[in-house]
């Protein structure tokens, strides 16, 4: 029996995509192998680790627990699109300043959860940040730095990214 296939139409990082895919293919394999968007990672492939996270219609979801055919007619934003658009810039700078990227494997998933936190939980304390991050594993165990980075962005409020980052780096204006 040949593998069942179906056409899916999806808006990926603002670009309309139409592809025929195997129906059993999950979203991250589609992004990585068919579209060459390798920023979303596969760790456990059963929803535990969070490395595969993407935004679907603006909400953080597990790419490995979503079929490519399920996002037909929907909008998917990946780490690539959210980096290029600048939406993640402040968080990325804060992660850099706090040494919250180590091996980098979990970073794209972490940043998407972090984006959810800064969008929806402006008043989050460290305990709340940790609770919301509990679905993202960092095998370098760099959680302290990751929480620090997210907290710094929340505390910086709506200040321009550069000011808080430079403060965190202890450098003077540029």
């Amino acid at each position, binding site marked *: *029996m040949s*593998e*069942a296939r*179906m056409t899916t139409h999806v808006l990926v990082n603002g670009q309309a995509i139409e592809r025929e895919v*195997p*129906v*059993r293919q*999950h979203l991250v*394999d589609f992004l990585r192998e068919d579209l060459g968007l390798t920023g979303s990672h596969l760790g456990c*492939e*059963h*929803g535990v680790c*969070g490395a595969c*996270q993407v935004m*679907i219609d603006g*909400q*953080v*979801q*597990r790419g*490995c*627990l*979503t*079929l490519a*055919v*399920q996002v*037909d007619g929907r909008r998917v934003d990946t780490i690539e699109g959210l980096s290029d658009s600048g939406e993640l810039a402040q968080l990325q700078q804060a992660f850099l300043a706090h040494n919250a990227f180590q091996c980098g494997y979990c970073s794209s998933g972490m940043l998407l*959860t972090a984006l*959810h936190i800064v969008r929806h939980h402006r008043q989050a304390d460290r305990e709340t940040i*940790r*609770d*919301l991050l*509990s*679905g*993202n594993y960092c095998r370098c165990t760099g959680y302290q730095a990751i929480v620090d980075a997210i907290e710094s962005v929340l505390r910086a409020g709506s200040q321009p990214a550069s000011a808080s980052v430079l403060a965190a780096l202890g450098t003077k204006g540029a």
Partner: protein
Amino acid sequence: MKAADFEYVRVRSLAQAFQELERRGDSARILAGGQSLMPMLNLRLATPDCLIDIGGLTGLRDIRPEGQALHIGALVTHRQLQESELVARTVPLLAQAVPHVAHLAIRNAGTIGGSLALADPAAEYPAVALALEATLVVQGAQGERRIAAQDYFQGLYQTARRPQEILTGVEFPVAADGGRAHFSELARRRGDFAMVGLAAQCQFDGPVIARARLAYFAVSDRPVLATGAAAALQGRRPDDDALRAAQAALRADLDPASDLQCDSATRLHLAGVLLARAVEQMRQSA
């Protein structure tokens, strides 16, 4: 791992879903949020011939009062429940349970219907449904059936829903004045499946517990009512004597299994710890 091959049908109506179920029999699985089914497919613990995706249906997404109950459609996500002021006000036990369900990204996609249809023994909602005497609503080509939670959960992943029916919603009685809810669970890591959990609903008559419903989960193949412990609390104030009597009664109510997470004796002890937390919270809110 990758899922084994299957066919995929995205249905546009419940009627179409019933037709597909009729045609394909037991070899088809219903796909809603997919947050439990997809891991099983990826791990090849499940290898259905066909997935019938009901995620595109426009109905089954409402949260609405219906008489003395709150009706929640099967496709309502955990996140919708968490953000619903109506749920928080009218079914506080459910509102307390939602943050314990998995993690943020899972709550954004997973559905209440999916959880109740799967009936994982360590899941939160089945215990809430049992504690609150909820009614599960299933539909098939022959029409609708309404099943009391007490009769719905029948064993490990076993429910009273028939293979050709779909769980379309659940109705929780609206909390009465004098009702107090307590939900807690113990897991080694936040968001993991619980080692032991408790969904407790008590009805107070002044300072006295008139009626208690204590539904434990992750202690058996289905959620279990601790009837002896509940009886020990009823007619008494939530004080230390009542608590000790109820904790003693738990030993007859529960016979938890041992597994890799913890052994039977630990589970039984932890069930008593959760009961103490419930009684303490009821005392403080008295």
